[in-house]
């Protein structure tokens, strides 16, 4: 028995021809977040703290589909989801449809710890975020030029990700799932 940690930044159609400018920053973020998690575990932080803090870092990376850098809806908006769960107590919290919360994972933890519920969505989740004083940002903070281009390409190819697989060429080898 000993500590262990794993993290991911999404799965899907990731072409082996993924350009270096898309591959390197993601690998660097994975390494940095792994080091952060190891450091937190070694310092005695609880696993619940560790997973929240690591995911917060991943949410800050515009190259991953969460927080800043989230992909866009058909209307060009951002609607994020997050969930956190403690193994021993099996307490959990989740949010969906948040559009201005910088760290949805921390809002999910607040749902778990500060409400009698375990899942808040859309206007209710946004209103709860305001009562908790969590960090809020303009919607433009979350939207990257890269994701605007991806939405444009998806609309041009009439793909919704549900039933049309973009080729690696169409999406520059980037995953469009997960």
């Amino acid at each position, binding site marked *: 028995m000993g500590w262990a940690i794993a993290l991911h930044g999404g799965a899907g159609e990731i072409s082996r021809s993924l350009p270096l400018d898309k591959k390197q920053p993601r690998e660097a973020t994975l390494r940095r977040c792994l080091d952060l998690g190891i450091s937190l575990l070694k310092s005695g932080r609880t696993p619940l703290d*560790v997973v929240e803090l690591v995911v917060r870092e991943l949410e800050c990376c515009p190259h991953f589909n*969460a927080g800043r850098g989230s992909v866009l*809806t058909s209307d060009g908006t951002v609607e994020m989801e997050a969930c956190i769960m403690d193994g021993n107590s099996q307490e959990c919290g989740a949010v969906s*449809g948040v559009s201005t919360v910088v760290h949805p994972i921390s809002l999910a933890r607040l749902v778990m710890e500060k409400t009698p519920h375990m899942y808040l969505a859309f206007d209710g989740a946004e209103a709860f975020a305001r009562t908790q004083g969590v960090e809020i940002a303009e919607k433009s903070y979350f939207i990257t030029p890269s994701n605007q281009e991806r939405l444009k390409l998806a609309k041009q190819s009439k793909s919704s990700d549900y039933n049309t697989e973009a080729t690696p060429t169409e999406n520059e080898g980037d995953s469009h799932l997960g």
Partner: protein
Amino acid sequence: TVGCVAVDANGNLATATSTGGLVNKMVGRIGDTPIIGAGTYANALCAVSATGRGESIIKHTIARDVAALMDYKGFSLEKASNTVITKSPQGDVGLIAVSADGEVTMPFNSTGMFRACATQDGYREVGIWSD
């Protein structure tokens, strides 16, 4: 999607997942990995965070199935995770998981998965594709 699972030296487990969903999804769509039991689940045996096509992950209750196979069939973390990934729609699903014993696994059936892990005994891995 991003996610993290962790276990401390005392076997305490936790999981977290966060996502923006799918490109060009309908406004109001809920249906990705941060659904409790579907793409994110933890109990006293393991902690799991999944990634991939949300609708598949929800329909197949990926994260909860890993825990259930360990609980009801006595599978190891690796066997339970591989069983779930093998039986999931091909190309749609990946997951990361740790057990209370400090095991770690990161299987996927898609082309790739951005992933990293480390254990107390010094093992460390950062990868994208299967090799």
